[in-house]
């Protein structure tokens, strides 16, 4: 199993007397209000999912991530993890002081050790991270909507937020012990924000032939219109694993964070996170973490050439289709037949069929998975 990124699993979760002391002091501290999405990243930092980060990025690390896709110490890191605040909040904070991060729904989340307060160029961030300034890109839209200031500094988690998916929330400490107890030495991580079709299953099982286990790790968090709801993703994966996988070879657990839709940079970020969970390999398909046509189809694979020191092995897959002549899932390297025999794994087409109450064919989606999706009146995310 690889060491966590940076060599050590971060653990900034307060317990016992330390936690009691922090809670008592929190009453007197200035408050930084965050939404339920940012609170998840506070927890991801604290439980080591974002190792080696121990807090939100300071300016030096932030600029290095933007310009070099590395932290200031040279360690690969491609997505800036930031805490943005407005001017009113800044006026109540000072560098060197502590503040308390609060989430409206769940109360006190963490103590923030305010090391730096700095401004940033939103356009530059959008350009560097997403490769575009187009507000049609969901990630760019979010950047433009951020507050003007960033706070850098370490955090100490005091309380976890509630989650309806608590049963699927595993920390890196837990997954590493789990993989060890299962006797897995090589593990392939699979990132998804979708319900499974046969192409996904094929890719996972192809990778599984070379490793001991597959860690299926859907992203649960902010998505865009047209993505499947989190509950649908989990229910369909449970059905798939129950019916088509060996229980001792597959683990399903979630990653609670936002999708950034940053394509290549996010592929590196996703690989690092799965390395922290204990994965030795990571599947990268066509247009990983992409949206629309902002990124070339295989840019998210090519970027790995910049990181020979990443510490997790990427497994690259080109796009698959179902070939009726081959009688199974294939790609252009394995199938000699004409296109007329192919059924493409088109997400758009499958969504259309499902929206029209039409069950997609068994060549595309397992019937158990299709049945679950079709039981939902509306299985898709609708963002206002």
């Amino acid at each position: 199993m690889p060491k966590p990124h940076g060599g050590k699993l971060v653990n900034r979760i307060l317990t016992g007397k330390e936690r009691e002391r922090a809670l008592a002091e929190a009453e007197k501290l200035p408050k930084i209000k965050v939404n339920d999405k940012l609170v998840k990243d506070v927890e991801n930092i604290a439980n080591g999912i974002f190792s080696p980060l121990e807090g939100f990025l300071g300016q030096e690390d932030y600029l290095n991530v933007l310009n070099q896709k590395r932290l200031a110490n040279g360690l690969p890191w491609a997505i800036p993890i930031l805490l943005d605040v407005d001017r009113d909040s800044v006026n109540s904070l000072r560098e060197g002081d502590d503040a308390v991060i609060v989430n409206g729904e769940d109360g006190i989340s963490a103590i923030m050790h305010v090391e730096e307060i700095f401004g940033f160029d939103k356009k530059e961030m959008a350009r560097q991270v997403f490769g575009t300034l187009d507000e049609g890109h969901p990630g760019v839209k979010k950047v433009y909507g951020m507050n003007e200031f960033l706070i850098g500094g370490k955090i100490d988690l005091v309380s976890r937020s509630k989650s309806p998916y608590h049963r699927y929330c595993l920390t890196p400490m837990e997954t590493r012990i789990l993989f060890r107890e299962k006797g897995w030495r090589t593990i392939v991580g699979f990132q998804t924000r979708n319900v499974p079709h046969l192409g996904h299953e094929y890719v996972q099982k192809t990778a599984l032939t070379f490793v001991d286990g597959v860690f299926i790790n859907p992203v649960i968090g902010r998505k865009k219109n047209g993505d499947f709801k989190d509950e649908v993703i989990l229910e369909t994966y449970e059905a798939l694993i129950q019916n088509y996988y060996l229980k001792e070879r597959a683990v399903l657990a979630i990653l609670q964070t936002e999708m950034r839709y940053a394509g290549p940079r996010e592929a590196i970020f996703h690989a690092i996170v799965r390395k922290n969970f204990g994965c030795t390999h990571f599947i990268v398909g066509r247009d990983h973490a992409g949206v629309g046509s902002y990124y070339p189809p295989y840019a998210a694979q090519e970027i790995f050439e910049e990181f020979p020191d990443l510490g997790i092995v990427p497994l690259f897959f080109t796009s698959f289709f179902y070939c009726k002549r081959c009688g199974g899932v294939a790609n252009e390297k394995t199938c000699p037949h004409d296109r007329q025999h192919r059924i493409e794994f088109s997400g758009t087409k499958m969504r259309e069929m499902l929206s029209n109450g039409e069950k997609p064919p068994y060549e595309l989606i397992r019937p158990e998975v299709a049945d679950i999706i079709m039981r939902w009146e509306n299985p898709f995310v609708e963002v206002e």
Partner: protein
Amino acid sequence: MSTLSGEKSAAVPIPIPKPLYNKIEERIEGTEFTSVTDYVTYVLEQVVSETEEEKEVYSEEDERKIKERLRSLGYL
């Protein structure tokens, strides 16, 4: 020179055969490694870390609780 943990330490020269040095120099062209020293240090750090036992950040009690949770959730 920095170690994996980012600490600065004194460097110690270690001779390697010239043909090997030249091969490495060719290999790192166009990569993120800026010198043969960088590349060799990285490779050796990987080798050394694989043989080191992973220093656990959790106690026996933590491990017991984690296994209990994993069992209750059906993972073990």
